[in-house]
């Protein structure tokens, strides 16, 4: 199920909220937790009931391994071995579903082999819930995770606001909240903030990301002959699409979490404000960066083993991050480019600080745009083809088909009402690009807004309007980009 679907907004969300608060009101705490787990499993099974076996199996196995690890003496070989087995099992399942075919098809290509592929359908969110549980297992081994009751643990992994596309939450920030009696009562302030964040997220996803997405789909299907101008728009459209898509999803997750009085960690902090690529990674998918820092970079030695080893660790983390995003050479290249850029930022740290912001920001933003091309492209060759068009310095006419692909029905209705021709679309959509970019950079982000939230009538009406406008925009093709990661 998607957040931006009728069944979620009209059925699952109201029912799960009503059931949760009613059960808590009558002091059935345990049943209320089970109710949320059941709602989360339904949310997950709605994609494909068979996925439930993987999610359910993963929760039960990790819970049991957690217990096993905690029952062993600290620093004992048994504790360490149990943790290693659990981590290998988690990564093994992830490998089978996500990477086996990629790995084998490359082996087949290199060695002219004919090893069979599995053709498994990737269970949604597997990368997210695998990482969450790996972090739990590691913390059990380190002795920093307590013994949790089963239903609390099951809720930590399956809690539907963060189940399929993050943020990647830690047991230490979620489970105490589930146990906190103060959070089991309906809280008007959190509910008001939650509805507003949900409205902003829906707007980003349904009205902004999907509109840019239509232009991107057209652009990637018609790369040849785009010329610099059209290619620039297609590249920028994807840069904006992926930001509004993923941060919109996270805003919705934040909002839905707050409706249940649960605070999810911030995942985006206006990433396109970044002045360097290293800065970007402190603002983009922050919980992933946090995970890799705590569970890969620091165990590798972090920055404690000299300059060159640090650079190597940083680069390796980004390679793994690229691969985490998808089983394709495009993602590995994307990760490698970002890894190289972050290493460069570290090496040139003091020198970079002397460059004026007005020069640094465009360079960083250009780098982000160009690397997103490989993130979106089906192959490295396709990515190069689009970048070649962009750097061809051939300034052709802007292609009207790009604007037609992005013309929303409301734009068409207004255009007809004003008796304008198709040039109207071009002007409005170019303005849309500019406003969206300026908004992404200069407007306060959702978390900043929630931090100093002040209820007002205009904000209430705006939020209601955005939710309504998003709901009536739902029918059509709408798929979250971050599902396959």
């Amino acid at each position: 199920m998607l957040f931006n679907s009728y069944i979620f907004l009209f059925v699952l969300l109201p029912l799960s909220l009503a059931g949760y608060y009613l059960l808590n009101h009558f002091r059935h705490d345990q049943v209320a937790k089970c109710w949320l787990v059941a709602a989360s499993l339904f949310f997950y099974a709605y994609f494909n009931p068979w996925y439930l076996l993987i999610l359910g199996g993963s929760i039960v196995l990790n819970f049991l391994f957690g217990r096993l690890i905690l029952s062993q003496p600290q620093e004992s070989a048994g504790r360490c071995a149990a943790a290693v087995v659990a981590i290998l099992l988690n990564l093994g399942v992830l490998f089978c579903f996500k990477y086996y075919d990629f790995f084998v098809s490359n082996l087949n290509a290199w060695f002219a082999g004919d090893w069979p592929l599995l053709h498994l359908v990737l269970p949604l969110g597997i990368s997210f819930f695998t990482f969450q549980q790996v972090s739990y297992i590691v913390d059990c081994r380190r002795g920093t995770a307590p013994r949790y009751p089963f239903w609390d643990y099951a809720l930590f992994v399956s809690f539907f606001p963060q189940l399929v596309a993050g943020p990647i939450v830690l047991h230490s920030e979620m489970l105490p909240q589930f146990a906190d009696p103060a959070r089991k009562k309906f809280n008007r302030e959190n509910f008001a903030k939650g509805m507003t964040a949900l409205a902003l997220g829906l707007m980003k996803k349904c009205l902004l990301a999907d509109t840019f997405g239509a232009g991107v789909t057209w652009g990637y299907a018609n790369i040849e002959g785009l010329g610099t101008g059209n290619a620039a728009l297609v590249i920028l459209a994807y840069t904006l699409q992926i930001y509004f898509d993923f941060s919109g999803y996270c805003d919705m997750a934040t909002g839905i979490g707050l409706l249940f009085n649960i605070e999810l960690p911030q995942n985006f902090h206006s990433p396109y404000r970044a002045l360097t690529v290293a800065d970007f990674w402190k603002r983009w998918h922050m919980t992933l960066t946090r995970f890799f820092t705590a569970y890969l970079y620091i165990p590798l030695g972090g920055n404690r083993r000299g300059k060159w080893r640090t650079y190597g660790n940083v680069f390796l983390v980004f390679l793994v991050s690229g691969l985490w995003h998808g089983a394709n050479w495009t993602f590995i290249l994307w990760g490698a480019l970002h890894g190289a850029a972050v290493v460069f930022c570290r090496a040139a740290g003091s020198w970079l600080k002397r460059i004026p912001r007005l020069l640094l920001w465009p360079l960083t933003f250009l780098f982000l745009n160009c690397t997103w091309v490989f993130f979106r492209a089906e192959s490295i060759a396709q990515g190069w083809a689009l970048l070649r068009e962009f750097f061809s310095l051939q300034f052709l006419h802007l292609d009207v088909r790009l604007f037609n692909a992005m013309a929303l029905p409301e734009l068409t209705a207004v255009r007809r009402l004003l008796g304008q021709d198709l040039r109207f679309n071009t002007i409005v959509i170019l303005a849309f690009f500019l406003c969206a970019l300026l908004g992404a950079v200069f407007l306060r982000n959702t978390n900043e807004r929630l931090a100093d939230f002040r209820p007002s009538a205009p904000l209430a009406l705006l939020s209601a309007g955005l939710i309504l406008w998003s709901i009536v925009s739902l029918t059509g093709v709408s798929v979250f980009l971050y599902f396959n990661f």
Partner: protein
Amino acid sequence: MSYRRYLKLLLGSLIAGLALWAAAMLLIDPYFHYHKPWFGMQPVITDNRYQNPGMARHFDYDSIIIGSSMTENFRASWFDAAFDCRTLKLSYEAGRTQNYAYIMRTAFAAQELKYVFFGLDIDPLLDEFGKDYFTVPEYLYDKNPFNDVKYLFNKTILLTDAAQMVLQNIQGMVEPLDEAYTWDDEHEFSAAGTLASYWDPPLAETELPADYYLENYTRNLGENILPYIAAHPETEFYIYYPPYSILFWHYRLSVGDVDAVMQLLTDTTKALLAYENVRLYSFLDAADIITDLDNYKDYTHHSAEINRQILAALAADAAEYRLTEENYQQRFAALEELARGYDYDSLLAAKRAAQ
């Protein structure tokens, strides 16, 4: 402002907004999903796949025209006059047999039918069973009331078709229902245009086996067409094979499936003639029509004038077009001879020289 008032205002205006939106859709109902037009509005017809189901359920009629785009230029009024009935046209552009089955099921559920006028094409019969070139919006086709949310809360429908329906009615610019789905005034019918649009593929070197499409047409016919004829003996089915231009047969020669198409026609005809409530006509071999490319806009689609001739032949029960147990084999043999023996090189010479 307190959080309580904020939430009341947010949730209250959201619920009110949703209710108003749904009410507007329910009242205007541009796809006639719930009712025929109210408030004296005339229907504005734009899309077969979205509007046929509602029209079939709620409009007043006692006979229907079904088929592909080849039937779209029929005017229902011609049939009303010739057959003394009240006809509704429910054609499907690029229609496939599941579209015909659905719309027959829906129309028969709404009332008894006097006549079904059915332009039966070759392509939907030979195509893979269930294949569709345009997906249908399932919320308008199934009986699930819950997925109606996709209709009730859909800005594309409210801002385009619903708004158009209201505006055109206010401005008094609604096209008569008789003109629904017609396209003859949007295209030029000429030999030059028809030849220009034809891609002149090379002829096949090998012929596909005669039973190449057997499984497809057996299912298309047996599951989506014959059951409705059998279930409604009180309804008279006027079924006809349309006149495709001679270039259609050049195309079949390029595919190498003339034997397979002839087998399809023979088997389909045999099956249809078994029903007493079927009158079957073939215009496939109407040489005067199909060899005159001025009647066409491309290799298959003919002008409305040809639709008129077809209607006249159906109304007069013209023996030269009617297929019977006695004549159909001979008619198809003659058609095959025409298709295989035609001098395509002369027809296409000018086009080839220009390339």
